[in-house]
Structures are given as C-alpha cells and as structure tokens.
C-alpha cells in the first residue's frame, strides 16, 4: 500500500475554499443547480486530492494511479474544481462549465482529464468501482479504488448489489465514502428513505465501517490514511456532512439542490467563505 501522506489543515482549508468558490461561480455563470451537493463534499475532495489519492496531473492515465469515481455525478463541478486546482487542466476551463460549447458538462464526464468515469444517474458508480477493484486484485496491482456516494446513491438497488458482491470477494482495495448530508432531492432523508442505523447496516453486510465528521480535515485524513480499515474487508467511510456547507442560507436545505445564486447572493456567499478563514 502507498505510504500515507499528510498535509496541513490550512492547506486542506484553502483548497476546500477554492473548490467552494469555484462551484458557486460556475453554477452562477451556468445558471445550474446542485451547488448544495458540491459544497457538502468540498472538504472530502480537498483531502482526497491534496494527499490521499495517488494521481499525477501530468499523466492522468498513469496506470498506477488510484481510481476515484464520483457516483454522485451531479456534483461534478466540485471535482472539476479540484482537478483544475491540482493542474489537470487550465483553470479557465471552469469558466465554460454548463455553457454552449463548454469543456465541462453538468454531470461529471470522463472526457475531462483526470475524471475516471462518467456518472449522472445514481447507483452506477459503485458497481463500476467494484469491477475496477476486482481487476486490480486479479492483476496483482497495488493501486486503490475510491468511490464517493451520495445519500440518494444509497437508495439504489444496484448500489446494494455491489455492496454484497464486494464483501463476498473481500475487496479491501476498495473504499466507499458517503457524503452523508442527509438531504436528498425531494426532502430530508428521514422523510424519504431513512438509512439509520446506517453504519450497522454496512457492518451487517460485512464491510469495515468508520463514521466521521466530513468537514473535519484531521478526521478525514486520519480515516482515509487507515484504509483498509480491516484487512480482507472493503472500507466504508460514513462522512457526516452538511448540505450547502459554508453558505449560511443554503445549509441543510433541500432548496440548495436547485437553482443558482444570483449576483447579489454570489457576492454574499463568497464573502461568507472569506470571513470563515
């Protein structure tokens, strides 16, 4: 396994802030939705791309790279933002997000350097990640596979089919991270499909589970540097997050899944993110 790498909370915070600012600006410019879902996972992406994932911006298809699949493809702008910050492609591409002849589509696309797989319909990421973990193990390769899911992803039957299969075959080169903000497209999780006790469900499915605060950089880094949590088991990181994190009026709201900020709201949101430093 690769040697654990660490970074400073300040570095993570700066990267997460950059991701959040890009997402607000991109969705504002594109008049597109899902910004709450992007803000929610910004801290997870910051730690993943600042230290955990073995990837090479100069060689996005490097065979030994860790594979990262964003299953919640609607949050793709946040991954585009972190990839641009890491130098996978020029930052000015972000200005074309969602626009005519743009380089970046609303849902994440593998046509963008550094993106492993396209998603957009939920429940697709984990089976593919499991297949990649299978192929890596069969070939004796050391890279790892990470898959970031949303709450909605965990409603899909295909996700649970893949959960059962991964445990059956002891894929400990596979890590799932759930952006567990407990808000989905039409309401709060407790009013749609309550998953609690979520950790216990996964333990019953024979996964090794850790539950953390998905906005605490030290907890995120510590957990991700411990994978596999248990040898011979796939790892499930339940990262408790806040939808719309960082923008006061968006936090924990269903509305943050829809619509873009207007000019005035954008200025206010960017100011909030600045003050939070």
């Amino acid at each position, binding site marked *: 396994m690769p040697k654990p790498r660490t970074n400073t909370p300040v570095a993570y915070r700066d990267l997460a802030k950059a991701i959040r600012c890009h997402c607000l600006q991109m969705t504002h410019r594109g008049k597109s939705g899902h910004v709450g879902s992007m803000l929610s996972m910004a801290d997870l992406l910051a730690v993943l791309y600042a230290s955990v994932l073995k990837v090479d911006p100069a060689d996005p298809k490097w065979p030994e790279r860790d594979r990262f699949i964003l299953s919640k493809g609607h949050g793709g702008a946040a991954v585009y933002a972190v990839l641009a910050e890491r130098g996978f492609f020029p930052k000015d591409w972000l200005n074309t997000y969602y626009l005519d002849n743009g380089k970046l589509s609303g849902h994440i696309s*593998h046509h963008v350097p550094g993106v492993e*797989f*396209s*998603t*957009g*319909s939920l*429940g*697709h990421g*984990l*089976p*593919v*990640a*499991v*297949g*990649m*973990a*299978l*192929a*890596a193990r*069969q*070939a004796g390769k050391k890279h790892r596979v990470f898959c970031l899911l949303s709450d909605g992803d965990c409603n899909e*039957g*295909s996700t649970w*089919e*893949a959960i*059962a*299969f991964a445990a059956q*075959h002891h894929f400990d080169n596979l890590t799932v991270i759930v952006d567990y903000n407990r808000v989905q497209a039409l309401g709060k999780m407790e009013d749609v499909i309550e998953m609690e006790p979520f950790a216990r469900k996964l333990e019953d499915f024979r996964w090794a589970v850790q539950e953390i605060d998905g906005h605490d950089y030290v907890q995120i880094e510590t957990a991700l540097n411990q994978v596999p949590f248990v040898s011979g088991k796939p790892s499930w990181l339940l990262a408790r997050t806040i939808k719309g994190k960082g923008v006061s009026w968006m936090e924990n709201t269903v509305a943050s899944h829809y619509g873009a900020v207007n000019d005035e709201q954008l200025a206010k949101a960017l100011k909030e993110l600045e003050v939070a430093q």
Partner: protein
Amino acid sequence: MRKVFNTELLSIAQRDKRIFMILADIGYGEIEPFAQAFPDRYFNCGVAEQAMTGIACGVAMEGNIAITYSIANFPTLRCLEQIRNDVCYHNANVKIVIIGGGMAYGPLGISHHSTEDLAIMRALPNLVVVAPCDFAEAQAAVHAMIAHEGPVYYRCGYKKEPPVHDGPIDFRFGKALTVRDGRDATIIFTGTIGYNCKLAAEQLAADGVQCRLISLHTVKPIDKDAILRSARETGAIITVEEHNAMGGMGGAVAEVLMDAGGLGIRTRRLTLPDVNVCKVGSQDWLREQYGLGVRHIVQAVKDTLASSPAM
C-alpha cells in the same frame, strides 16, 4: 447454440487472458468448464444484473474483456441504463450475451422471450448488435466479438438449431452473408429464424421463384451495400425476424432503403405482431402461431411479388 458459444469462448480464453465471465447466477450445465478452468476470471454476482453489468464495465475499463451472460432479457432490459451509460458511453470492452433470442424459451413465457431486444440494443451508440443464425455463424461470431474493440450484443440461440449455411462462411461484423442467390426477390433474415427462411426459399424455388437469401447477422453496423445491391438487382425485399414489429431488423433495413430514396421497390416486413406473446408452446409452434412459419414466409414473398411497387 449456447454450447457452441461456451465451447468456443473457453477455447479462446485459453489463449486470451483478458477474458472474464461476469455472471448473474445463470448458465447451469454450460459455464462450469470456464469456471473450473479460470476460477480467477469467473465471477457470479448473484441474481443482480445491474451490478453484473457495472462490474463488467469496471473490469473492462482496466484493459480486460468482460462477458456478461444470462437468459433473454435479463442482461439487457434489467440493466439497460448500465449498458447505455456505463458500457456504451465509455466504449467499454463488454460483451453482452443473451441465451434464447426471440422465443427460444417457448413455453416459459414472455419474461423469457427476447422480442424487443434488436430495436432497443441497436439504438445504443457504439454497440455492435449480432444475431447468429446457426452454429457456423455462432462460432465465427464469438471470434469476431472478442477481436472487436468495444461493446457487442450477442443474441445467442438456445438449442440444436439446424444449419442454414451449407458450406464454410467468411464471417465479418457488418458484412451480410448470402445463403443462396436469386433474382426474383430477396429475403433478408437475422438470427435462427433463418432456417424457416431457408425452407421457404427452397419451396419458392420449387414453385419457380428464385429468392436471394441473405443472413443479416449483424444488425448494427448494418450492411447497407448488401441491402441496396439486392434492392437494385431483385426489385423486392422481404425481411424476416423473430422480433416485435417495432424497430427491429426490418426497421433497420427500412431506414437504409428510405435514406437511399426508397428506390421504388416492393418491400414487406415479416415480424411478430405488436402484442405480448401469451400463447403457450414451443418456439416452432409459437412461430407458426404468430406468423413466422415457413408457409407465412412463402406467402409473404408471393404477396410481395404480386403487389405494386409504388404507393
């Protein structure tokens, strides 16, 4: 035909270490030799076709060839979105194999009839759609499928389908095969209904009508040249397929003719009616019941030749 498929795949997999079978708990009595020979390349996902397809896609994305395999609609309709978004969009080297194309599972009923698959599968970009008519095509199609870089849909038969081709064949994806030549009309078929077409052509020949008989084993990419050449040379095209009336092989041929300006020829499509097949019986009996018997094909050719080419 499924035995031919599995035997051929096993033999190729001895040489090609990239081949994985990713199954959904179907294949009893057929897949065991592969499982025993290559336990590290054989995975049963359980009764979970969506995961099967997604996992196969992930395996293929890592430089392998992943075969998914199940009965009739199970590896297609249940997981259609995985085929579209995961396999086809990423042009992943996944081969989707169904056993029992058309009504091969006869009395098992509609859940096991694959009768809309050609229309649905051929609508997906990047996907090759192939339906072998006999053992010779089935065997050759396995090699073509493995050699092809990208996704393939392979509509396999189920039992001991009789031969359609009399001699060796030069099988290539996208190149239709002429089973017999003729100048009065052309019968174009796909899949195992080809045997009924062969019998019909023989009967028509005895009645003095010389039909060209073409196996359009690859429904996509379609052999436009063979269709247009036959249209020009015989002036009549009759398509025959064990498939719903909507959007299948006959529809694909109609698209080719329409794009070419119609050509003013006589045409007819012989398909299943646009109904749910609810009668109970063997494949042969069902073909008779739903208008795909030898006599139906003979009559369709005669009716077509008696009709006026212009509207």
